[in-house]
């Protein structure tokens, strides 16, 4: 442990801690900008400079290690003046468009400008003239607003191992774009949106599609149905200043009805369907034996995109089941339309997701049109939805917390709701797979070993008399090791080290999705995850196959999992799409 003084206050921190960490521990404030809790310090912006007694130069608190006996000053007139001048420099290099910016009110640069009470501009503007890139139709890059903090590049390269974004040129010409100046849509970008989730300003944001929804809601002939993803309910409140993890399920259903949706469903139902299909797949493959294992989950479209581009050799191991919201999309225009006597052409299906990638998924291939029409018409993010709630004058406190969804595609089990957490899909699958393989109605319910924020979680459990090994990875930077272990074993004709692998592109799982409310770090992810497990424990039914609406679906419509009808409507196929070396 190290003892140091900050502003004459004694602080004790473990070896290797930075001055910034020591200050945070002591409850002292040092302004920062480029530093993000998820990422190591890049030491770029220069806002966090502090003085150390006896040192010639100011140092950056985010990157300087605390040392025994150090005496640090965080605020004095010179430090504030230097930080302020640096901030003025950054502001001069930034367009003056707060009022019309996607991050108005949530921007970290605005926060700093307010902290320093900037009222006059010291320096003339030097703003580059670069056009925005919305070639992905999911994420928009506005390089004029980029402050070169480098968070997006670090996330895309190191955390996600995608390498779509990079720093190009140097000096004042520095900008962030894909290699060779191709559009983001032609780059390795998998649309996970982690770049936008980490951007401190309005340089990267989601592609807003709320206008299409407003239009549909006002069109009398359109029968609008909507579904919300599990992760949305535990994050929406943050956009209104509430605690992460607070479960606003009822209020959201209520808000959606007031907005004018004709039917309110829940993606958790789709999650339960996914489990029915995937658990059946799993049981089949277990029977088939070695070559067909592992089974790899595919409800994450960024992960699917990543696999098709860079790991297409593993394609035969992908589950063919579509993702939960895509399933509800298909069912809304077949099963539901039938039951309600609607013309499918009049059904307008919306999904509200924590995810930017779903925008890309819904036109991915012909199987996204399994109903004969586009199954999901529009997918929007939690952030877009929060803006719709505000625009419609809805106030969370006044909404009904006990509102229920339209149960036919809305009732869900505890297994469905935990899909939003890393490890949740696996846990849900195991709850049903046990029953399907052994017939045991009271088998293990909770699998705590695969919960949590560790990059790769591995577990061995007994299903019947078989030892099942599963691996759960989140954050694509963690995936390569798991896949290589599998490849190595299969190449030598040995049994795969894992029978079942779950992969989520976003750290923490969907709760950490690229479209969730602004500001995220591990504490917030943990709270959101805990919110979902609380929801799970609250449910009377916690296994997908026990969901009554699910039973009805199969009895009335699909017959049984992996039936011909299920295969036609709820399953998809994959194509290898090799990209350049990322």
């Amino acid at each position, binding site marked *: 442990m190290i003892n140091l003084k900050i502003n004459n206050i004694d602080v004790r921190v473990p070896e290797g801690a930075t001055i910034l960490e020591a200050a945070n521990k002591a409850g002292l404030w040092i302004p920062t900008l480029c530093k993000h809790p998820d990422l190591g310090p890049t030491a770029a912006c220069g806002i966090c400079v502090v003085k150390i007694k006896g040192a010639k130069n100011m140092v950056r608190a985010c990157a300087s290690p605390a040392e025994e006996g150090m005496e640090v000053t965080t605020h004095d007139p010179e430090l504030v003046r230097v930080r302020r001048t640096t901030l003025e420099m950054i502001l001069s290099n930034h367009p003056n468009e707060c009022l019309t910016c996607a991050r108005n009110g949530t921007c970290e640069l605005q926060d700093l400008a307010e902290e320093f009470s900037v009222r006059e501009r010291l320096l003339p503007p030097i703003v580059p003239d670069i056009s925005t890139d919305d070639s992905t139709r999911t994420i928009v890059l506005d390089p004029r607003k980029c402050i070169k903090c480098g968070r997006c590049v670090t996330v895309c*390269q190191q955390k996600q191992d995608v*390498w*779509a*974004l*990079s*720093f*190009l*040129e*140097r000096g004042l010409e520095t900008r962030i774009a*894909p*290699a*060779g100046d191709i559009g983001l849509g032609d780059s390795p970008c998998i649309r996970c949106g982690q770049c936008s989730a980490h951007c401190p300003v309005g340089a990267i944001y989601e592609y807003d599609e709320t206008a299409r929804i407003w239009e549909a809601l006002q069109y009398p002939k359109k029968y609008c149905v909507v579904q919300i993803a599990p992760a949305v309910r535990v994050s929406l409140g943050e956009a209104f200043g509430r605690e992460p993890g607070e479960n606003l399920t009822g209020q959201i259903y209520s808000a959606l009805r007031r907005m004018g949706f004709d039917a309110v469903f829940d993606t958790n139902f789709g999650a339960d369907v996914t489990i029915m299909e995937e658990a059946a797949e799993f049981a089949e493959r277990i029977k088939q034996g070695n070559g067909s294992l592992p089974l790899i989950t595919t409800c994450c479209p960024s992960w699917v995109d990543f696999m098709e581009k860079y790991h297409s050799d593993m394609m035969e191991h992908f589950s063919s089941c579509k993702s939960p919201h895509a399933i509800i999309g298909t069912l809304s225009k077949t099963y539901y339309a039938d039951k309600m006597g609607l013309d499918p052409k009049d059904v307008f299906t919306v999904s509200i997701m924590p995810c930017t990638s779903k925008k890309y998924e819904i036109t991915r291939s012909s199987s996204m049109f399994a109903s004969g029409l586009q199954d999901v018409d529009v997918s929007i993010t939690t952030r877009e939805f929060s803006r719709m709630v505000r625009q419609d004058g809805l106030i969370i406190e006044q909404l009904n917390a006990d509102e229920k969804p339209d149960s036919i595609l809305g009732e869900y089990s505890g297994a469905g709701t935990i899909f939003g957490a890393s490890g949740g899909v696996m846990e849900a699958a195991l709850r049903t797979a046990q029953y399907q393989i052994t017939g045991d109605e009271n088998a293990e319910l909770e699998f705590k070993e695969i919960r949590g924020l560790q990059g790769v979680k591995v577990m061995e459990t007994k299903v019947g008399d078989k030892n099942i090994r599963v691996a759960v990875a989140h954050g694509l930077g963690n995936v390569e090791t798991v896949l290589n272990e599998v490849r190595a074993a299969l190449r030598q004709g040995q049994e795969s080290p894992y029978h079942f692998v779950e992969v989520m592109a976003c750290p923490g799982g969907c709760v950490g999705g690229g479209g969730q409310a602004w500001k995220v770090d591990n504490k917030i992810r943990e709270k959101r995850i805990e919110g979902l497990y609380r929801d799970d424990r609250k449910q009377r039914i916690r296994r997908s196959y026990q969901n009554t609406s699910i039973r009805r679906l199969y009895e009335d419509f699909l017959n049984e999992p992996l039936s011909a009808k299920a295969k036609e409507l709820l399953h998809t196929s994959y194509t290898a799409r090799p990209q*350049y*070396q*990322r």
Partner: protein
Amino acid sequence: MAKTKQQLSPIEIAAKKYARYRDPLIMVLHEIQTTRGYIPREAAFEIAKLLNVPLARIYEVITFYNYFRLKSPGKAVISVCTGTACHLKGADKLVKEFSEELDIEPGQTTDDGLFHLQSVRCVGCCGLAPVVVINEKTYGKLQPSQVPHVIAEWKEKFETETADAAS
């Protein structure tokens, strides 16, 4: 079956030369630039594959370091030294003169692809200021009045080369 030396592409040859270097990217890029005069797009893709380096990293490096060109330069690259001694002895006037004579701005290539004009940092011949380097030839103590003559010299050189090649 391994390829013979003749079957290897220039990039494969370069990669092989630095096979025992750790992180040889910049050395390989230098080899390509020396043979091709710039780094063509296809070369960047090939280097990425051969060296197992993400394309993003390759472009990060090529666009950071001034030495590497992304576009084909002219047959003669006119580099006007703008180091301190040359600056004091009127390097700007030389740049202006070349620019006017060739009708291009620094950083551009003439339409006929013959001349590329650029300002460069100190080339280390300060005793001969002002200095202009054209391909491998160094011109010391160059005066703006001599510029048209120098350009004519090179144009003639190219004409003779083309004539020789044709015959």
